[in-house]
C-alpha cells in the first residue's frame, strides 16, 4: 500500500509537469476514482462508530418501550418478593411471560433490534472478534459450555435447563447498558435479548457470533 501511494504521487507530479494534456486529465480522473475506495476504507471505522451510536439510540428507545410494557404486565400480577416457595417463583415467571406474549401478540424479529440497531450490534461484535480481545472472547465463549445448533424465536421461553453461554465481558461492555428486566444472551451463533424475569425471548439477531467461537 505504501509503495502504491508513492507511485501515485510520483505519477501526479509527472502529470503536472507535462501540462495537463487530455491523457493526463484522464489519468488523474482514474486516480481520483481509484482513490475513493482507499479513502472510504480508511474512514470506515469512524463511519461505523457513528452508525453504532445511532443504532444503539434507536435500540435503547425500543427497550424503554418494552420495559414499560413489561412493568404494565407485571402490575396486573400479584407482587413477588423473595420466597421459600419455588412454585411461586415459577408460577410468577410463567404468568408474566403469558401476559407479555398477549401484549405482544404480533411481535416479530427486528422490533427491538431494528435494522440500524442490528447493524450497530453486528459492527460491535465484528470489532470484538477482529480486535485485540478476539482470542480471549472466543475462549470465554468456549469456556461457557456454548449451546450449539439452536435458534430461539421471539415470544419463546428460554428452554429450562439449557445453560447460558458466557458473554465475553469486553463485548458486553461495548453494548448499551440495559435495564434490570432484560439481558443479552448468546445462543449458538445468535444474540438474543431476554426478559430475565419472564425468561422470555423478546428479540434476536441471527448468525452474528462468528462460527469459530
Amino acid at each position, binding site marked *: 500500500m505504501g509503495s502504491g501511494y508513492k507511485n501515485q504521487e510520483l505519477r501526479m507530479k509527472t502529470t503536472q509537469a507535462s501540462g495537463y494534456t487530455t491523457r493526463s486529465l484522464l489519468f488523474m480522473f482514474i486516480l481520483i476514482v481509484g482513490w475513493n475506495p482507499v479513502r472510504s476504507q480508511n474512514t470506515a471505522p469512524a463511519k461505523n462508530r457513528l452508525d453504532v451510536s445511532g443504532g444503539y439510540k434507536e435500540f435503547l428507545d425500543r427497550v424503554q418501550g418494552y420495559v414499560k410494557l413489561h412493568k404494565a404486565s407485571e402490575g396486573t400480577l400479584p407482587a413477588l418478593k*423473595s420466597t*421459600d416457595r*419455588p412454585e411461586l417463583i415459577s408460577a410468577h415467571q410463567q404468568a408474566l411471560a403469558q401476559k407479555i406474549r398477549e401484549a405482544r401478540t404480533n411481535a416479530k424479529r427486528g422490533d427491538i433490534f431494528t435494522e440500524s440497531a442490528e447493524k450497530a450490534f453486528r459492527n460491535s461484535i465484528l470489532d470484538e472478534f477482529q480486535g485485540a480481545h478476539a482470542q480471549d472472547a472466543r*475462549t470465554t465463549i468456549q*469456556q*461457557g459450555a456454548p449451546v450449539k445448533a439452536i435458534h430461539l424465536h421471539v415470544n419463546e421461553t428460554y428452554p429450562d435447563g439449557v*445453560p*447460558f453461554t458466557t458473554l465475553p*465481558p469486553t463485548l458486553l461492555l461495548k453494548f448499551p*447498558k440495559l435495564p434490570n428486566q432484560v439481558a443479552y444472551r448468546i445462543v449458538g451463533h445468535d444474540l438474543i435479548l431476554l426478559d430475565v424475569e419472564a425468561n422470555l425471548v423478546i428479540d434476536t439477531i441471527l448468525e452474528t457470533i462468528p462460527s469459530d467461537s
Partner: protein
Amino acid sequence: MYKHLSFALILVGAFLGLAHADQFKFPLKPNSVRFAAIGDMGTGEKPQYQIAQQMISVHQAFPFDFVIMLGDNIYGGSAPKDFEKKFEEPYKPLLDAGVKFYASLGNHDNPNERLYKFFNMNGSNYYTFKKGNVRFFALDSNYMDSGQLTWLEKQLKDAGNKDWKICFFHHTLYSTAKAHGSAVELRSLLEPMFIRYGVDAVFAGHDHVYERIHPQGGIYYFTEGSSGELRTGDLKRTSIEEKGFDVDRTFMVIEISGNEMYFETLSRVGNLIDSGTLPRVARLAPKSN
C-alpha cells in the same frame, strides 16, 4: 459380589469420614467467622447427597454458620421439584440447624433463583454481606456489565481496609483445568480492582475440581467446583497450582479469626485433601498463567 464390595467400601468410607470429623483442628476461636464453600453441586444425584452428608457430620464438630454457593446451584431445570431434590433435601439438616446459604449464579442457574429465599440473594444477582470481620461480595460472573463493575468498585472502596474482603462467584479466574481453565477476560476486568481495593481471597467454581492457586497479587484463589459434579483427571497441574484434587468430590470449611484464615478441604468420604492457615498478606506482583 460387587454390590457387597461397594457396600463395604461405603461403610469404610463412612467410618473414615466420621472418624475424621472428630479430628478437626480448627481453633474455634470466640467470635470467629465459620463457613463452608460448595460449588457446582446442584445435580440431585448421589454424590451431592454424600457431600451433604459429610457437611452435616462436620457441622457437629465444626459448627459453621453459613455456606457460600459458587454457582450451578440447580442443574437441569428450575421447576419446584428441582429445588427440592437438588437443594432442600440434601441440605435439610443444615437448614433445620439454622445454617444460611448465600448463592452466586452459575451458567446453569435460572436468574430467578435470586428470588429464592433460602439463597439469601434478596432479589439481586450480585450483593454484599458482612459476617464478623469479613465482608463478602457475591458476584454474577455470567454477566459482568458496567452496572455490576461500577457497583463492585464502590462497594470495595466503601468497605475500607479494616475487614477481610472475600469475593465469590462462578467462573474461576485462575485454573489449570483442561475443561474450562482460567477466565482470562473476566480476570482482566476484576483482578486490577481486587488488587487496588485489597481483596484477600476469591472462591469460584465452574471447573469440576478442587484447586488452590499460589497467591496472585497477594490474593488467595480457590476453585471449588466439585461438590456435586466431578471431572476426573482434569487438572493440568501447571506451576500456578499450589494444591489440586480431581479424583473425588469435595467441599471446603473455613474459619477466619483476626488476621488468619484456617481452611480444610474434605472429600466425599471425609478424607482431608488440603488444609492450612493463611494470613492476610502484603501484595505480590501477579504471575501470568
